[in-house]
């Protein structure tokens, strides 16, 4: 019953890194770094209605050591900044980062004494998502953009920063 049956006696060829990238792209393990309201919207994205599982990224890990996609969803305070940096550093390569929402991308409307003005001041970011909070469709689009980036063999921001 396996896929082999479909090929009969024939075979397909590919390049190793393409096969690996294909596997990576359909099995991203997200690590949610949820610090504010955007995290609630992220839950909606993973929930059954929008169902991130359709893109192979449903296994949300709460350990950075088991994840390759960091989704920063929420306001990051200066007090939290070292924590975010450490979590990012603990993730194994290759790794990708989505900055979800106005706060994570730019500090949002919190131009104050406590808030980091965008997580790209601390860690490299691959895809920014606009919105306050972004709709689940926007988060899924960001995930698809990450998949495209993996497909295109572009290096993750982690390796070019």
């Amino acid at each position, binding site marked *: 019953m396996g896929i082999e049956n479909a090929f009969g006696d024939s075979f397909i060829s590919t390049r190793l890194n393409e096969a690996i990238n294909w596997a990576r792209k359909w099995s991203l393990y997200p690590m949610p770094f949820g610090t504010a309201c955007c995290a609630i919207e992220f839950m909606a994205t993973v929930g059954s209605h929008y169902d991130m599982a359709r893109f192979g990224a449903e296994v949300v890990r709460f350990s950075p050591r088991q994840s390759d996609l960091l989704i920063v969803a929420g306001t990051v305070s*200066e*007090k939290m*900044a*070292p924590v975010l*940096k450490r979590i990012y550093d603990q993730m194994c390569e290759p790794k990708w980062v989505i900055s979800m929402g106005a706060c994570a991308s730019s500090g949002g409307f919190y*131009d*104050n*004494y*406590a*808030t*980091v*003005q965008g997580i*790209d*001041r*601390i860690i490299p970011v691959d895809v920014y998502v606009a919105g306050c909070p972004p709709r689940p469709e926007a988060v899924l689009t960001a995930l698809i953009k990450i998949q495209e980036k993996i497909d295109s063999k572009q290096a993750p921001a982690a390796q070019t920063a």
Partner: protein
Amino acid sequence: MTDTSAFPDLLKARFGEAIESSYVDAACTFVVVRRDTIVPAGRFLRDEHGFDLLADLTCIDWLERVPRFDVVYNLYSIANRTRLFIKAPVPVEDPAIDSMTPVWKSANWFEREVWDMYGLRFTGHPDLRRILMYDEFQGHPLRKDYAINERQPLIPENLPPGDRIPV
């Protein structure tokens, strides 16, 4: 909510000169108490008028006014369904007031927050540390003379060209 208009006179009868003024705003009674009498006044209201809950304790920075700060106590009596505000003015030259923790335990974290945000010391507080900001933080961010966006990063940040953090 029960009528609270009698409390200014009740407090004046008990503490005399130490009750500076009183007024009604937004259907609530406010009594301004000299800061050296704030703890006895709190204990009196708790023991004899059933204010068993310190619902909130906060601070106002009036910047130009002398004395500059007001510490505001939001008292509630669960049995009588009565809310009463007492306030104590505190000058910036000596930003200290007695801790309310012996009367209401809930004052503990509220006072830590006021210390953290406004830099008022609460004499007799069991553990007066910052509660929201990190220990490395310099100054008290809700003081009106603290620049609103003066950030104090804990780790180095990559700044976009032309950007700066005022220090």
